[in-house]
């Protein structure tokens, strides 16, 4: 094992890891927005919105994320969408993970006992008031952990944008494997950085989960 080399390239990997962190945070936020909108559509009273939500989930979950990112980044300019690689990566990854989060959020909402909706409606509260004050607070407790699984997948999924040359951790590892011919060393450095990001995120999710369970 070439520790000398590892020490020398480490700063570049660290910098790339920061890009991976940025990608992950932005994707998590945008993905949650997509997921919430998707779940709202899937649970809508109107068939039209339900159909849109179901189509979104079906198409995104039925095709590879890599292809989705390629369509957006390489195919986008043909339909008037010009994005730099980083933005295309974030948007593509968000739309992708959003479909999975749609199902997570929807699943949590529909697993709240239907008596809760009835009780609140019986008191005269509207559908939306009930959602906001009764259903969503209870569903939120149920969704933290499965959303954590989605976010874990999302962090590893950010590696895909290496394929459109965003200089993040996997791209950097690939570049250095090519130039140093030391695949194991490069894998260890980047792998360790991924594990740290995932570990810290996991602790954060566990903390959040405990917090929502108590109140």
């Amino acid at each position, binding site marked *: 094992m070439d520790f000398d080399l590892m020490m020398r390239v480490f700063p570049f990997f660290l910098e790339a890891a920061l890009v991976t962190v940025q990608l992950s945070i932005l994707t998590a936020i945008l993905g949650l927005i997509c997921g919430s909108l998707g779940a709202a559509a899937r649970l809508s009273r109107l068939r039209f919105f339900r159909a849109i939500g179901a189509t979104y989930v079906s198409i995104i979950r039925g095709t*590879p994320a890599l292809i989705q990112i390629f369509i957006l980044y390489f195919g986008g300019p043909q339909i008037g969408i010009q994005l730099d690689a980083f933005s295309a990566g974030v948007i593509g990854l968000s739309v992708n993970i959003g479909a999975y989060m749609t199902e997570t959020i929807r699943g949590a909402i529909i697993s709240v006992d239907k008596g809760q909706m009835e009780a609140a409606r019986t008191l005269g509260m509207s559908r939306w008031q009930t959602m906001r004050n009764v259903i969503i607070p209870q569903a939120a407790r149920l969704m933290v952990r499965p959303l954590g699984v989605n976010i874990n997948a999302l962090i590893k999924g950010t590696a895909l944008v290496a394929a459109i040359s965003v200089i993040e951790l996997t791209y950097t590892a690939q570049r250095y494997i090519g130039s140093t011919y030391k*695949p194991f060393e490069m894998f260890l450095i*980047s792998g360790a950085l991924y594990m740290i990001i995932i570990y810290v995120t996991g602790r954060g999710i566990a903390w959040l989960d405990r917090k929502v369970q108590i109140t």
Partner: protein
Amino acid sequence: MGLDFTVVPKFFDVIFIGVGWTVAITIAAGLLSFFGGIVFAVVALYGPLLVRLPFRLFAWLFMGTPLLLQLFLIYFGLIQIGIDLPAFVAGVVGLGLHFAVYNSELIQASILAVDKGQNEAARTLGLSRGQALRKVVIPQAVRAVIPPIGNNMIALLKDSALVSVIGVAELTLAAQQAIGRTFRPFEFYVTAAVCYYFINLALEAGLRRIERHIQLSR
């Protein structure tokens, strides 16, 4: 540059071959991930300590890092230690091992759950520990987790697109070849997406049949 899907039919042969390779990779890597998952699970639970510990480390690394990074490691790593595998084989091994680790986690939990009651029942009939595991516990444990393993197979199909990056000539790479000749990325990536979508539908239908079949024997 507007959209023009009329160029797509000219490349049907290229796309078709790509579909074939994607199906082949999915089946090969799927089988590897299934049987590998069983072997890994048994090793992780019952292997000697000296095997178990490095194995757990390996599983932990594979679950905590991106598949794409692992594919680079396998492809270039094998070359470095003097094994020059064809890209297809490297792709199958990478995908298969990655999902074998995930399947193994499912199977381990299932074995532990089944083992409690069934082991005793089998041992009172006079089966040895090994026989009880092989003939009674493991078959039941694996059947119980067929549905989540099926979900992993679906993920595997979609992740097979990644092996294009190490030069495996499957559907995604086929689309890229067509794009290289026509400069129409939108049309061909969408075509590839449609193909993936239908392969996925077929895979889901197949998995449902298997699940129904297995329901009967549970």
